[in-house]
């Protein structure tokens, strides 16, 4: 009898509270979005399943002695996992389009306005009863507008670990929604004539330029904004492994083994931050609304900067490519291409949008560095 009671007390249903049940449902929902709707499945499948596992009562898988809790401590709290993923992103990214036309960096810069506008929005929410975001919380939320998963996770784990789950989920969800969020904004802000602009073929880029590029970017970061150096450093390191041509083995390891293994671990670890008391709160609703806002503002600012460049260059720049400045590589660039093709079936903007697209990655890492330097501990 005693043992049967012990057994009953060890059961999940005897210990499950309503919050855990709801978070398990949220986990299943994320996996559903990932599989059925193809919402960034590489991250959302592990995040969703991690949420499921971490909210199982009694088991404590996400707790300090549980497997996922230990993975979180080792990989996310230290910031190592997002940095390793950023190394892989660097090794997978071709910066050629950006090197060929550096001015597209300005599009990547403009799109970061979404981040800073959201910062104000988050602080403004404090006037609504029930919200109490610190400046650091607001900065961590704002980075969702950067449309860059590893950057958001890196900054979130530094500035507001208790919001990390909601921030990561919002970041990846909106990145997945890029094809739905962006086109109406792009169409609203441009004329049909602007969207039909055919851009000039990109010039070829030499290998020396490709090899020097990581050093130039890193050096400027080191001199001006060292708080962005871990992110930019690993991004450029990965890119150097790719471009230098003498370390094929290491480049492959960064592009495959390391990024795949770390993605699984990182996803599970972030899932463990989806706990009822943190996620089923008013704050999460605020974060989701602000995240959407950040994306829209970022897209709009990118397109507006595209229009400015369109005028400044005498019509050589198609303003649509500004929308790719939010990063979300390579989806945003594909969306640009698609909207461009709607107007002119022979106008392929993909390569031209890759420049602002990868510029957006650098831009949001720089913005993360700024936020870290100005609000960080």
């Amino acid at each position, binding site marked *: 009898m005693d043992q049967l009671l012990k057994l009953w007390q060890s059961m999940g249903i005897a210990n499950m509270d309503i919050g855990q049940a709801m978070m398990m449902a949220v986990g299943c929902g994320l996996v559903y979005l990932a599989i059925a709707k193809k919402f960034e499945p590489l991250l959302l499948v592990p995040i969703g399943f991690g949420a499921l596992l971490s909210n199982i009562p009694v088991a404590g898988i996400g707790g300090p002695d549980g497997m996922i809790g230990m993975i979180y401590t080792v990989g996310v709290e230290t910031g190592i996992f997002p940095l390793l993923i950023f190394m892989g992103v660097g090794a997978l990214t071709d910066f050629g389009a*950006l090197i060929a036309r550096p001015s597209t960096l300005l599009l990547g810069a403009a799109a970061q306005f979404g981040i800073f506008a959201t910062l104000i929005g988050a602080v403004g929410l404090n006037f609504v009863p029930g919200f109490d975001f610190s400046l650091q919380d607001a900065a961590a939320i704002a980075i969702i507008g950067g449309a860059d998963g590893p950057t958001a996770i890196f900054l979130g784990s530094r500035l507001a670990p208790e919001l990390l789950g909601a921030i990561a989920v919002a970041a990846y969800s909106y990145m997945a929604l890029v094809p739905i969020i962006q086109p109406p904004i792009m169409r609203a802000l441009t004329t049909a004539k602007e969207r039909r602009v055919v851009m000039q073929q990109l010039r070829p880029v030499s290998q020396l330029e490709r090899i020097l590029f990581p050093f130039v970017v890193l050096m400027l970061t080191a001199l001006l904004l060292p708080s962005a150096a871990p992110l930019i450093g690993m991004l450029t390191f990965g890119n150097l492994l790719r471009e230098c041509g003498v370390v094929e083995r290491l480049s492959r390891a960064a592009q495959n083994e390391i990024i795949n293994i770390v993605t699984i671990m990182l996803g599970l670890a972030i899932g463990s931050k989806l706990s009822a008391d943190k996620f089923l709160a008013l704050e999460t609703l605020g974060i989701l609304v602000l995240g959407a806002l950040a994306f829209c503002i970022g897209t709009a600012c990118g397109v507006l900067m595209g229009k400015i460049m369109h005028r400044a260059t005498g019509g050589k720049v198609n303003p649509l490519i500004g929308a790719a400045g939010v990063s979300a590589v390579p989806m945003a660039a594909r969306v640009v291409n698609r909207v461009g093709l709607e107007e002119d079936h022979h106008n392929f903007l993909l390569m031209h949008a890759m420049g602002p697209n990868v510029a957006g990655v650098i831009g949001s890492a720089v*913005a993360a560095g700024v*936020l870290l330097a100005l609000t960080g501990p």
Partner: protein
Amino acid sequence: MSETVLLYESLRLMLIGMGIVFSFLLLLVGILRLMSWTALRLAPLPQTEPAALPAAPGSGDGVPIAVIAAAIARYRAGRRR
């Protein structure tokens, strides 16, 4: 910190932040141009070869082929190796 102070704080953060992001990337535009200029001086692209190509085979109908070859070389150099 009261909400208003925080809001003022975040406004300042926005101005400074966007300022830095823009200045940083604008500076990067300049430096990247300088880098490309220098790099192409030090190691010109192989697409200069096609310019020499037409001279070699001589005869008239060699020209279009050379032009195509040059275009292909250009295109391939533009893509990753």
